[in-house]
C-alpha cells in the first residue's frame, strides 16, 4: 500500500457526518450483513464517530449554510484552518474566538470579533436545547 498524498484535502465535521450517515443508510438498505467478522471494524468506527459528531453543532448544518458561511468569511482575513475550526466548533464567546483565531487581538478589534460571533450565530445552527429556554421565556412574558 502506498500513500500518495497524506494531506490531499481537509474535511469539515459536517462532511464526514454526512458521509457516514449516507453510508449507514446504504448498509441498511442493502440488508445483508455478510462477512460480519470483517465489517466489525467499520461498524465500530462508524458508530463511535457518528455518536461523537451528532453531539456537535456541526451535525445540524446543511450545504447551503456552509456555503453562505464561507462566502461571508471570505471578506475577513482568516486562514483556511481558522475558518474550518469556526465552522466545526461554532464559538459563541470572545474567549473561544481567541483560541481558534491566532493573534486575534492584533488582527481584529473587539467590535470585529463581536461581529464575527454574531455572523457565526446567525449563519450556523446551534444547540436546540440551548435555544428552547429562550423561546419559553419569551412566551411566558
Amino acid at each position, binding site marked *: 500500500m502506498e*500513500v500518495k498524498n497524506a494531506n490531499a484535502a481537509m474535511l*469539515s465535521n459536517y462532511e464526514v457526518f454526512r*458521509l457516514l450517515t449516507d453510508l449507514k443508510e446504504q448498509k441498511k438498505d442493502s440488508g445483508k450483513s455478510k462477512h460480519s467478522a470483517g465489517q466489525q471494524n*467499520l461498524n465500530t468506527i462508524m458508530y463511535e464517530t457518528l455518536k461523537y459528531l451528532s453531539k*456537535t453543532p456541526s451535525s445540524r448544518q446543511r450545504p447551503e449554510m456552509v456555503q453562505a458561511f464561507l462566502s461571508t468569511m471570505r471578506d475577513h482575513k482568516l486562514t483556511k484552518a481558522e475558518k474550518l*475550526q469556526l465552522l466545526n466548533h461554532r464559538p459563541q464567546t470572545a474567549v473561544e474566538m481567541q*483560541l481558534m483565531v491566532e493573534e486575534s487581538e492584533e488582527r481584529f478589534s473587539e467590535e470585529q470579533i463581536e461581529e464575527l460571533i454574531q455572523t457565526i450565530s446567525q449563519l450556523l445552527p446551534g444547540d436546540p436545547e440551548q435555544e428552547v429556554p429562550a423561546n419559553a421565556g419569551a412566551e411566558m412574558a
Partner: protein
Amino acid sequence: MFVLVEMVDTVRIPPWSFQRQLNEAVSEELNKKLANKVVYNVGLCICLYDITKLEDSYIFPGDGASHTKVHFRYVVFHPFLDEILVGKIKYCSQEGVHVTMGFFDDILIPPESLQQPTKFDEAEQVWLWEYETDEGAHDLYMDQGEEIRFRVSDELFLDTSPTGPKIDETPPAQPGQSAAAAAAAPAQDTNEKKFAPYTLIGTISEPGLGLLSWWNN
C-alpha cells in the same frame, strides 16, 4: 479534524465474490483492511471516501482471485498541530489526564500542560486546578466523564508492526540450567507493554481551555 488521504493499493477479490460489482467488492475490501486502523504517519482511518481510479484486474497463476490496483481517497482522523478539540475525560493518573473522543482514545494531557497551579489528589485519583480569585481559592476537579476542550500540542506515531522472535543472547546453558533459562524467556515477552500506535498530546494551559463548565457563564 479529518483529512482526505490519497492512497494506492492492490486489492484481492476472491473468486466467490466475482458476481458482485467490482466497485462494491473493492470498497468492501478496502474498508475491511483500513477502517478503525492507524496508518503510520498518516492517522486513524475512518472510512472510504471514493475510488478515483480502477486499473485492470489480473489473475495470477496459482491463485484464483483477481488482483486490482486501486487509487482511492480515505477519510482519516488527523488533527493538525494547535487544533482545538473537545473530548471527555476518561480517567486521571500520575501521567496526566487521559481524554477520549469515543472513536479515538489515546489522548494525554501531561501535568505540565494543565492549568497552573494544579495538584493530583491521590485519594480520589483526580487532578484539580487550584483556582484563585479575590474571594479565595477554589479547587476545580477534573472528574471522569466531563467534557474538556484542549489544544493539540504534539502527536506520536509508533511503529507497532510485528518484529521477529528475539535472539537468545544468553550463552548456551548446561543441560541442568537450560530448563530455567527457557522458562525465563517467555516470561519476559508477556511483560512487554502494549503501546498505542497513535497518541495525541494535548494542553489546556490557556484561557478558554479545560472543562467546558469552567468557561460557560
